[in-house]
């Protein structure tokens, strides 16, 4: 991945927010080390995020600082104690009161064998508990991930089914395109309906007529499109376009053996004996 791609992928932002997987993190860290452009971009991301935090500032109560510094002192004392175990052995009778409360595992100096064993087993138990907890967490997150993946998989498979069905329908609808004797004609919108358009495929030898409804708006409940074939100026009913027609769908209508032009009118549901000329929407010669 080039540095530009990496920057644009948004992964730096996720890394700055601590939302990257280990693998992603190491990729980002590698790029941060080796690429100054990535580095600069990342610094700016961090600066913007820091700004979010800085402007949230609320002064904590003043006693808090004292409490913190006390805790630091306690920590430091512990560290000093831990560094001088030899001395502790010399003066085992005088431990500081504070330490008694704070310390448990460190002062095993001069202890008997069973005390050592007890201490060791406690440490082992704690380590094992920690490890268990860690594994448990990891298992949980793995399970969650698996659930998300399963879900995605199901969605994909659903979508795939829908696409497959649509494809089969289209294939059936357009199977006639293999017909060698097929003639095609565009039917264009009349003056009153300039936006509309439809396509006619006609096999004169067999009489098959197919209509492709590519620019026909949906009609009201009680209306329907009707196709007419004009043979020597006389309109013949060429069939009704199904009420539930779909945009771009192809429909086989009535057989017509002789025609020089086709037209579509809007008629009452079920169709009319003769076309309502003022409701003629598209027309085209073969």
């Amino acid at each position, binding site marked *: 991945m080039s540095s530009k791609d990496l920057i644009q992928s948004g992964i730096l932002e996720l890394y700055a927010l601590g*939302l990257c997987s280990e693998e992603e993190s190491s990729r980002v860290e590698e790029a941060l080390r080796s690429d100054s452009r990535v580095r600069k971009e990342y610094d700016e991301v961090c600066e913007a995020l820091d700004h979010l935090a800085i402007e949230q500032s609320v002064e*904590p109560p003043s006693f808090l600082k004292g409490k913190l510094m006390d805790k630091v002192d306690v*920590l430091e004392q512990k560290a000093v104690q831990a560094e001088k175990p030899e001395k502790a052995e010399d003066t085992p009778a005088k431990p500081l009161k504070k330490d008694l409360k704070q310390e448990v595992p460190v002062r095993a100096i001069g202890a008997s064998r069973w005390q050592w064993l007890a201490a060791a087993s406690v440490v082992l138990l704690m380590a094992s508990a920690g490890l268990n907890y860690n594994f448990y967490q990891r298992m949980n997150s793995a399970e969650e991930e698996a659930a998300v993946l399963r879900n995605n998989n199901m969605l994909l498979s659903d979508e795939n089914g829908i696409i497959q069905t649509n494809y089969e329908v289209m294939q059936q609808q357009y199977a006639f395109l293999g017909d060698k004797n097929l003639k095609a004609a565009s039917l264009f919108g009349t003056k009153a309906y300039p936006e509309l358009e439809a396509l006619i495929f006609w096999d004169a030898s067999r009489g098959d007529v197919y209509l492709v409804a590519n620019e026909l708006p949906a009609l009201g409940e009680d209306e329907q499109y009707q196709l007419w074939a004009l043979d020597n100026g006389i309109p013949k009913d060429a069939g009704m376009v199904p009420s539930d027609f779909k945009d771009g769908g192809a429909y086989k209508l009535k057989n017509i053996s002789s025609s020089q032009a086709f037209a579509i009118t809007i008629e009452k549901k079920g169709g009319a004996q003769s076309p309502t000329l003022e409701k003629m929407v598209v027309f085209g010669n073969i």
Partner: protein
Amino acid sequence: MSNLSTSVSLVEQIRAGDRQALARLYDAYAGMVYGVVLKMIRNEELAQEIVQDVFLRVWQNIDKYDEAKARISTWIINIARNRTIDEIRSKSFKNQQENQSLDVSVNEGEQGGTTEMKVDAIGLKSVINRLRADQKQLLELVYFGGYTHEEAAKELSIPLGTVKTRVRSSILELRKILKVE
């Protein structure tokens, strides 16, 4: 406060075990840490505990801090956010939230009026409020809410890919606003 050379020398002093240096670092960043934690957890007592904990961790882990990797403010905020997220996800915190009815928490907010008001007063002019609503919502979730991007996608009912691109676009927008200022 974010003067770079001051931060670097402070870090050096803390590494050398200088407690006064930690106190100065606290003076510089405690407000920021307390504000962020308070926004995330909305409980003053817990937030104060966490602030102490964050600076103790800074003290104990300063050797792990790498100037080349992050600014000290970024490092500290991330410690604070992670510590608070752990708290939010802990059992005891969840139990406490469940036991606390909505009424009680509203009343508490009124009692602790001073801090709440401060937060709001700052909130009004903050940059995050100048983002588009969808960008603001997402950043609030992932930055202050401790949401992972998967959780955010679920919460907002948008695809994971959209979360990723929207995180980036929100931060880009933030940067633009900050540059103009």
